[in-house]
């Protein structure tokens, strides 16, 4: 006879889970009571939001399903932002929440919330478990939907009496899905049609998004892009998918994309999209997006096709299947000579990718830091100006190396996510870059870092503002800096030391020389090479802006530049 809680943990092990992140409470206490000896290691964070972001970091850096646990009521509601974040960025996530006893559901009992109802629009699938017999099927089905197709979050809500009940347990089960509308595969012959489109294109380009990485098809994608040899760029979640030294690679595209990428995307007559959903941060004003382009869209999620503009050729399916199939066609096809277009698109403006000629201390600092990191390092960012600078200066061909909250843009993401990344990749260098605003939203997770002795290298870009909002207020609200002043920030070094984490400071004066002085270089090396958790506060220009910038409502061709 096993209790429901023991059955849950047994089924998690059957799904390959050996690590969960969570925070206990009344309704979920029976599950915590069963942890010892279960084979599932639990990481205690200091806020449920920290747990769910940590589970996301684990999932984003490995491709495996991240698992977060919380109690009912406020515990469950504290998971909601992370669940929404996972949905927007296609992260496989299973959240297990405790619920009040079955007979109290619907009575506004102590710490009762309708987590099933409130997460309906944020989850791929969810289940309020009604009997102990349902647990194995619920977990098996939950993990299936979290992983399959376009990955995403699921919620399994389990009343405490179900966790305490007992049955004769015959073992975990496998979920057998029935045919789904989304199980549509690319029509045969798409390769010939695509070759025909390429043969008439004069300015083809390729856009790479998160889907290319999620599919595991990076090696095949890179062979394909080499064969096509057309101007190529990435969304923020596509960074690292394209080889950095590829001569056709133009960097990030979109609101803060490079001039070369945005210009090429605007001018193209044939846009090949690999696993990107054409978020508005990428397209700019949809009516002005790639005005002359026919669109070919590779994606596993049919709901993303035709969403912004109708496709000339939609190719639905797993990119792990469709990309190799297309590459086989390209290898033997006779394609036009795009040398002139390539020269035009990938010419002098590529110099923006060159680290020389930097104008802002923060950009130089990030460049200096990133240049000292090994190729298989992870950079986890929070949300704001630092995030965009970090994305612009990302210099790695490590596919899963850049981790950020893109679609939802959740401040407070970075520190707990970095915990998840480091737990999943104990031997890797993990650098966590936050702004002074976002770092304070989950600052309590420094306690988790300290307890676990995670050698995460935390950087705070401290400009004493909510920087990105301040930038918009400067550019579009006549410098009315309403409620963005953080000039009374606490002493982050002192806070870190109170959490028993070594901390130091660097000022922008130390970034004025290029290259940096030996002393500054040594300080950065010590910071990165330390075997302990570290915090480095970079005191920087308060009113620096991120450029280029495409204003809201503008087309990608209407970029603002620093000199304006």
């Amino acid at each position: 006879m096993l209790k429901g809680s023991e059955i849950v943990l047994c089924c998690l092990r059957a799904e390959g889970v050996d690590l969960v992140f969570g925070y206990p409470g009344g309704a979920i206490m029976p599950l915590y009571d069963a942890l010892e000896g279960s084979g599932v290691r639990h990481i205690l964070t200091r806020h449920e939001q920290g747990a769910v972001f940590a589970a996301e970091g684990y999932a984003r850096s490995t491709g495996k399903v991240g698992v977060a646990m919380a109690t009912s009521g406020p515990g469950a509601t504290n998971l909601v932002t992370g669940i929404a974040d996972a949905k927007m960025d296609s992260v496989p996530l299973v959240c297990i929440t405790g619920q009040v006893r079955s007979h109290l559901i619907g009575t506004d009992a102590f710490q009762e919330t309708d987590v099933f109802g409130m997460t309906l629009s944020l989850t791929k699938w969810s289940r309020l478990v009604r009997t102990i017999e349902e647990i194995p099927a619920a977990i098996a089905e939950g993990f299936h939907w979290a992983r399959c197709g376009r990955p995403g979050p699921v919620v399994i809500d389990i009343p405490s009496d179900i966790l305490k009940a007992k049955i004769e347990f015959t073992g975990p089960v496998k979920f057998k899905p029935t045919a789904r509308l989304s199980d549509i595969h690319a029509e045969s012959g798409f390769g010939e049609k695509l070759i025909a489109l390429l043969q008439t294109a004069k300015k083809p380009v390729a856009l790479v998004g998160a889907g290319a990485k999620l599919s595991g098809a990076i090696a095949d994608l890179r062979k394909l892009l080499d064969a096509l040899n057309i101007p190529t760029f990435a969304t923020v979640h596509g960074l690292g998918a394209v080889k950095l030294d590829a001569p056709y690679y133009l960097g990030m595209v979109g609101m803060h994309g490079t001039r070369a990428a945005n210009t090429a995307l605007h001018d193209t007559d044939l846009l090949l999209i690999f696993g990107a959903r054409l978020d508005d941060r990428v397209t700019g004003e949809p009516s002005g997006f790639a005005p002359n382009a026919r669109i070919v869209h590779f994606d596993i999620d049919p709901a993303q096709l035709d969403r912004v503009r109708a496709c000339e050729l939609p190719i639905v399916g797993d990119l792990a299947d469709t990309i190799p199939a297309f590459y086989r066609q390209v290898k033997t096809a006779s394609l036009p000579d795009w040398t002139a277009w390539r020269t035009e698109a990938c010419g002098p403006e590529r110099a923006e990718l060159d680290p020389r000629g930097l104008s802002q201390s923060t950009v130089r600092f990030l460049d200096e830091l990133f240049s000292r990191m090994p190729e298989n390092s992870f950079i986890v960012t929070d949300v704001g100006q630092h995030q965009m600078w970090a994305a612009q200066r990302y210099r790695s061909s490590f596919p899963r190396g850049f981790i950020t909250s893109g679609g939802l843009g959740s401040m407070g993401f970075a520190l707990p996510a970095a915990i998840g990344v480091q737990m999943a990749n104990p031997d890797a260098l993990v650098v966590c870059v936050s702004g002074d605003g976002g770092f304070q939203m989950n600052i309590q997770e420094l306690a988790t870092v300290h307890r676990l002795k995670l050698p995460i290298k935390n950087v705070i870009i401290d400009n004493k503002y909510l920087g990105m909002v301040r930038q918009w207020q400067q550019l579009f609200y006549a410098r009315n800096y309403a409620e963005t002043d953080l000039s009374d920030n606490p002493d982050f070094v002192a806070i870190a030391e109170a959490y028993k984490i070594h901390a130091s400071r660097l000022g922008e004066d130390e970034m004025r020389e290029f290259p940096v002085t030996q002393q500054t270089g040594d300080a950065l090396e010590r910071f990165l090479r330390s075997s302990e958790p570290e915090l480095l506060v970079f005191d920087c220009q308060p009113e620096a802006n991120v450029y280029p910038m495409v204003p809201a409502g503008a087309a990608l061709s209407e970029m603002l530049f620093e000199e304006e």
Partner: protein
Amino acid sequence: MHAFHITYRNTQGTLMRILNAASRRALDMPYVQASPAENAHTVILLLEVNAKQIGQLCRDWHAIVDVEEVRAAVAPKNFSELTTEWEFAPHPPASVVSRGMSATAAMA
């Protein structure tokens, strides 16, 4: 006014997800009827929507795990005149669906 006829497996929350696709867009729902039908359930919704919203809704509904089929028609003035002459709402993207067939039929 447009009418939508959605066939779904009546698993936990599926009907709510279908309705939520409309409610999250602040669409009024003057008429909703859900009922069992053979091996599945169906729900008929009347919504005041424009062409862009129809595309958005169909995409959202087709993405729900247990939705099997979506059909659409222009709604009659009188609700009682709702007929079964539904047109298949093309599974996005429209170009992968054979003319006159639903995605479900195409997989059969």
